[in-house]
C-alpha cells in the first residue's frame, strides 16, 4: 500500500510542475489584481485620505475577484484529460488528494499575492502601521478562498460554461470573509486592536480547510457522473 504522504507529495510535485509550464495562466490573475488596484487612484482621484480610507476594501475586493479568475484551473484540466478520474482511484482517502490540490492552488495563487501585498498597500496609501494586519488577513483569508473555491469548482467543473456560475456561487459565500478582513485592517488603521476579526478569519481558515475536502469529494463524485 502506498503511503498517504507519498501520494500527497507526488500530487503536489506534479501539479506545481504542470502549473509552472503554464506561466501565463499563473500570472494573469496577479496582473489583474495589480491593474485593478492601480485603477482606483486614477478613478477616485489621488487624494491620499480617500485612498487610505478605501484601501482595505479595494485590496480585498480585488483579491476576491482575481481569485475567481484562476480558480477553475483547480480541477478543469484534470477533468478534461482524465487525471481527475485517476486521482479518485488513488489508493488513499480522496480528502487527502483534494487537500493536495487545495495546497497547490494556494501556493501558486495566494503566495504571490502575499508577496505583492506591500506594493498594493503602497499604491493605495494604506498607513504603514496597518500593513502587518493586512498581510495577516491575506495570510489567513487566502486559504479560505482556495478551499471554498475548490467546493465551487468541484460542483461546476463538468459544466461547459461554469465560469460565471462559479463566481455567482462563491462570492456571496465569501462576504463574511470580506467583512471581517476589512474590519481587521480598518481597526488597525485607526490604531485599535485587530485581534478579534483576525481570530475570526483564522477560525474561517481552520473550518474551511477541515470541512472543504469532504464537500469537494462529494462534489467531484457528482461531477464525474
Amino acid at each position: 500500500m502506498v503511503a498517504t504522504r507519498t501520494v500527497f507529495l507526488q500530487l503536489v510535485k506534479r501539479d506545481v510542475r504542470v502549473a509552472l509550464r503554464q506561466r501565463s495562466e499563473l500570472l494573469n490573475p496577479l496582473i489583474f489584481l495589480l491593474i485593478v488596484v492601480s485603477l482606483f487612484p486614477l478613478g477616485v482621484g489621488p487624494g491620499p485620505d480617500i485612498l487610505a480610507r478605501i484601501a482595505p476594501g479595494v485590496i480585498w475586493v480585488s483579491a476576491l475577484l482575481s481569485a475567481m479568475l484562476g480558480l477553475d484551473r483547480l480541477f478543469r484540466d484534470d477533468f478534461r484529460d482524465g487525471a481527475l478520474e485517476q486521482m479518485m482511484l488513488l489508493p488513499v482517502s480522496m480528502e487527502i488528494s483534494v487537500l493536495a490540490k487545495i495546497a497547490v492552488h494556494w501556493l501558486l495563487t495566494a503566495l504571490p499575492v502575499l508577496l505583492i501585498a506591500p506594493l498594493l498597500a503602497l499604491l493605495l496609501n494604506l498607513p504603514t502601521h496597518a500593513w502587518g494586519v493586512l498581510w495577516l488577513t491575506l495570510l489567513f483569508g487566502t486559504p479560505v478562498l482556495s478551499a471554498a473555491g475548490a467546493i465551487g469548482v468541484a460542483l461546476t467543473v463538468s459544466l461547459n460554461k461554469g465560469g460565471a456560475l462559479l463566481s455567482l456561487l462563491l462570492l456571496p459565500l465569501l462576504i463574511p470573509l470580506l467583512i471581517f478582513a476589512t474590519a481587521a485592517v480598518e481597526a488597525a488603521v485607526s490604531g485599535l486592536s485587530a485581534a478579534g476579526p483576525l481570530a475570526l478569519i483564522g477560525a474561517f481558515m481552520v473550518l474551511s480547510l477541515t470541512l472543504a475536502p469532504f464537500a469537494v469529494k462529494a462534489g467531484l463524485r457528482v461531477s464525474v457522473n
Partner: protein
Amino acid sequence: MRNLSALRRVDPVGKIEGNVPENMTTQPTASPQSADHKTLLAATDLASVRGERTLFADLNMHVRAGEVWQIEGPNGAGKSSLLRILTGLLAPQAGQIQFRGEPIQNCREAFHAELLFIGHKAGVKAELTAIENLEFYAAVQGQPISAPPYELLEKVGLVGLEDIPAQRLSAGQQRRIALARLWLTDAPLWILDEPFTALDVSGIALLEARFAEHVAAGGAIILTSHQAVNSAHFPLQRVQLRYQY
C-alpha cells in the same frame, strides 16, 4: 436500489445476451456465496440508467484471476459506463460489486490499490513529458522509479521522445505513455477502456503480449474494444451489450 423493480418491469429485453464464455464452460452466476478465493471482482444484478435510457439491467459478471473479459457493443451501448461502474467511479442504479468478496464501497482504498484503470481519457498531463507522467503514476502505484525507465520507453516506442511535453506527441504516442503504466504496476485487476485506440499494429501486438503475461501471472483484465482481441494466449470471456432505446 429503489429503481430495481421498475427496471426489471420496463426492461424485459434489457437482459444481457452474453455472459456466456466463448471457450469455457458456462459461467456460474456471481453471488456472494459462490465467490471463491480466485474471484477478484463480482458484479451482481447491475443496472445503469443514463438520463431516460436504461443502458443495461441484471448484468452479472464474475471475474476470476487469469481471465480476460471483453465488453462488446455498439457506440452508446454503455460499455464505458459499465467499466466506470466497475471501478467505483460511477454508482450503479441497482446491484452490487464486490472485490474479493467485499462490497467495493466498504473497501475503496484497498480495492483501488489493486486496480489499474485506464479510461477513454487517459490521465496523461499534456504539459509533462513521458518520463514525468510515468514517474508520477509509478510512485502513486507504489512502484517508484528512480532512474529514467529507458528499457520501458524503448519497449513502448517512446525513446527519443521522453523529454518532449506530451501535448506535442501524436495521439498514439500519448496513448502509449498511458499504457506504459501497465509495465509499472503490480495491480492484479486491470480495467481498460479501448486500450487499442490510436495504436499501430506493433503497439497492439505489444499490448496483447503484456496481457498474456499479466493473465499468466494470475491477473485479470476487463476491457472494451471494437477490435477482435487475439485470444490465443488467454481465455476470453465476452459480454455483449445491446443498444437499448
